[in-house]
């Protein structure tokens, strides 16, 4: 039956533990992390009750040392690059705005690590992390956020619209929910083309209520599109608490109604996110249709801008709609040190090597900032270009 969860499918997912001698120990370690939620709870139309609450942890074992190190590096890139933006902006004179992703890094990295370079993502207003995890260039991204002529979008788009078609990044997007529809449309295009690519649409907890999500989900289910919808549930829509505007607690349950398999995962656990994302990606690639994955997380900064934050300090405090205590509890679940502990315990990285990675990423971020700073601003008249493929539109002033 369309969309019904197939337990055999999950159990039969490839176990590559034989290929990596560390696999067994990793699995043991992961299982010992059970308390912090490795694995996903899934919901699905027709799934029997027993299935609910069960977890899967199949793909993590196949991650190589290089892949794991790259995941750690990417999480740090997101963290340190955005923290740099915050510090630059608080210093004053910053030519741009931003919705910071800090705190949610495990989702972008977990998901994008499960993708191929030629897969697509459709991103949101809080999308810097998605783009970095998909290979976005930190220099060009910072140049774009500061509206420089050499940024990703030549200074036209800024933070909200960064796009890199060559990396399969269909763009950040300032309209909530649109990412689901753009992504599902791209997934339909893949079917027409007949390739085995997949599309991930990222969206916040607020993104599934407008009609865009419904249109995307129903079509993805009906046509079995290679579409994965990642719902980043950071519990707020600006200041509005999710629990005040939804009748359900686990948003992945929405998937049921469309006949899509829905999963809930700890969004602060990069391995858990990777695991379920990889499962969904393999399924989509094999033509077995879409998955909706809800990742529970928390944003460290305000919805937009830098209120409540300070240079050299993580997090935004004193915001009226949440308690500092709640933020601190979530900061204690910081996905980055958590992953580092895993990597060190598993002997993927030594403490020394992990520190080196931090220093390397810091240098990359500083280089990006220096690059962006040195870039030229756009020419005024160029605002009239790029409306159509050819020519300029008239100014009509004289």
């Amino acid at each position, binding site marked *: 039956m369309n969309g019904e969860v197939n337990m055999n499918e999950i159990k039969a997912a490839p176990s590559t533990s034989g290929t990596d001698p560390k696999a067994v120990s990793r699995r043991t370690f992961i299982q010992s992390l059970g308390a912090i939620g490795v694995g996903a709870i899934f919901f699905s139309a027709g799934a029997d009750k027993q299935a609910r609450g069960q977890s899967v942890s199949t793909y993590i074992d196949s991650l190589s040392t290089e892949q794991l190190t790259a995941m750690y590096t990417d999480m740090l890139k997101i963290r340190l690059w955005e923290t740099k933006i915050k510090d630059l902006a608080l210093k004053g004179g910053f*030519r*741009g*705005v931003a919705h910071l992703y800090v705190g949610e890094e495990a989702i972008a990295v977990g998901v994008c690590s499960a993708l191929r370079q030629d897969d697509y993502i459709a991103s949101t207003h809080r999308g810097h992390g998605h783009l970095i995890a998909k290979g976005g260039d930190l220099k060009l991204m910072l140049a774009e956020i500061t*509206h*420089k*002529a050499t940024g990703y979008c030549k*200074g*036209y*788009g*800024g933070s*909200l*619209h960064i796009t890199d078609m060559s990396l399969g990044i269909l763009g950040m*997007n*300032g*309209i*909530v*929910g649109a990412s689901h529809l753009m992504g599902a449309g791209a997934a339909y295009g893949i079917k027409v083309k007949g390739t085995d690519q997949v599309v991930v649409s990222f969206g916040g907890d*607020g*993104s599934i*209520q*407008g*009609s865009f999500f419904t249109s995307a989900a129903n079509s993805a289910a009906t046509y079995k599109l290679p579409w994965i919808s990642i719902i980043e549930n950071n519990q707020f*829509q*600006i*200041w*509005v608490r999710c629990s*005040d*505007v*939804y009748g359900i607690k686990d948003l992945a349950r929405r998937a049921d109604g469309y006949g899509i398999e829905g999963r809930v995962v700890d969004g602060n656990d990069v391995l858990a996110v990777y695991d379920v994302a990889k499962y969904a990606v393999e399924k989509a690639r094999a033509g077995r249709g879409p998955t909706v994955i809800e990742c529970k997380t928390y944003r460290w900064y305000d919805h937009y801008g830098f209120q409540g934050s300070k240079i050299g300090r993580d997090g935004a405090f004193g915001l009226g709609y949440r308690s500092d205590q709640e933020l601190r509890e979530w900061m204690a679940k910081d996905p980055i040190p958590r992953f580092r502990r895993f990597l060190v315990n598993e002997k993927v990285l030594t403490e020394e090597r992990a520190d080196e990675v931090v220093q390397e990423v810091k240098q990359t971020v500083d280089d990006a900032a220096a690059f962006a700073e040195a870039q030229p*601003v*756009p*020419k*005024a*008249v*160029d*605002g*009239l270009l790029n*409306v159509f493929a050819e020519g300029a*539109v*008239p*100014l*009509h*002033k004289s």
Partner: protein
Amino acid sequence: MPKSMRYAILEAIQGEMRRDKLLTLLYEYQRPAARWGGRSINLEAEFGRWRARFSAIDENWIVGGALGMSMIGVRAIAHIPSMTTLIPYELMFNHAGKLRHMTGGQAAFPMILWADMQGRASFQAGQHADAGLESCYARLAGLKVVIPSNPYDAKGLMVSAIRDVDPVVFCHYSVPTSGPDVPDEPYTVPIGQTAVRTEGKDITIVGYAPQTVEIAKAVKQLKQRGISAEFIDPRTLAPLEQVMETIIKSVKKTGKLLTSDDGSYSFCNCTEIIARAAEAVPGTKFKRLAFPDAPPPGAPEMINYMRVGAADIVTAAEKMVRG
């Protein structure tokens, strides 16, 4: 310090919610609360959550809900954020604007679409710096469209909109505070009544909302250069008949009509004003200043070059007056 536009609008709604015990506000995240001096308004605290209700990110609910409520006699205000102006377009087009007519006068929608509007700000780009979409609503049958430029007009127009039995789109651009002080008690600025901001004899200049700031500057500079400009703020964009009476009277006097609009050149609302003036007063000289037919770029260098500023208005007016 005078009351801000937001405070003035909330004061209008507060007064009407006290008068009409059913009047209800649906909104998304723009809290219906504001402070001014030592005073504060908080509609949720005063009237409870049933009458001042935030929602999920769901503009179709906010507007559609208001339509349904108002259809059974519960007056409603639907407040939507600025980047979503056209999301509820279908509801306003095919329902709010049409059903009175289609039902032979039975159905009524005493509702207000309180639409936050964007300006042409730098660093926003594309989806967050567009302007001029009021003309999309003004071209729909059955809808009234008002567009205040200062807190006094905002309060008076909101009261009129709430008391109106027809659907009204209340276009709320944020404009630096100017104009008369806002009285505490309810009052109306009638829908259809324009404001002649400055009287003059050489040229008529028409514009509204953020452009009023540029026009006011330009009018001063023109005066220094010996040109007497008459500046009219329409305040209502639909229906336009009564508004045009004032504009046509002015144009008959000056023989020249210059309009200045943050909307895109084609189909900006002033296009309609020029067309009507052309029909009514043959021989008039016209000039339409507007944003190019382009999305708004984020970089200040580009968007500020494209947007109409006071200097552009002065140049255009001088050219029209001096030949």
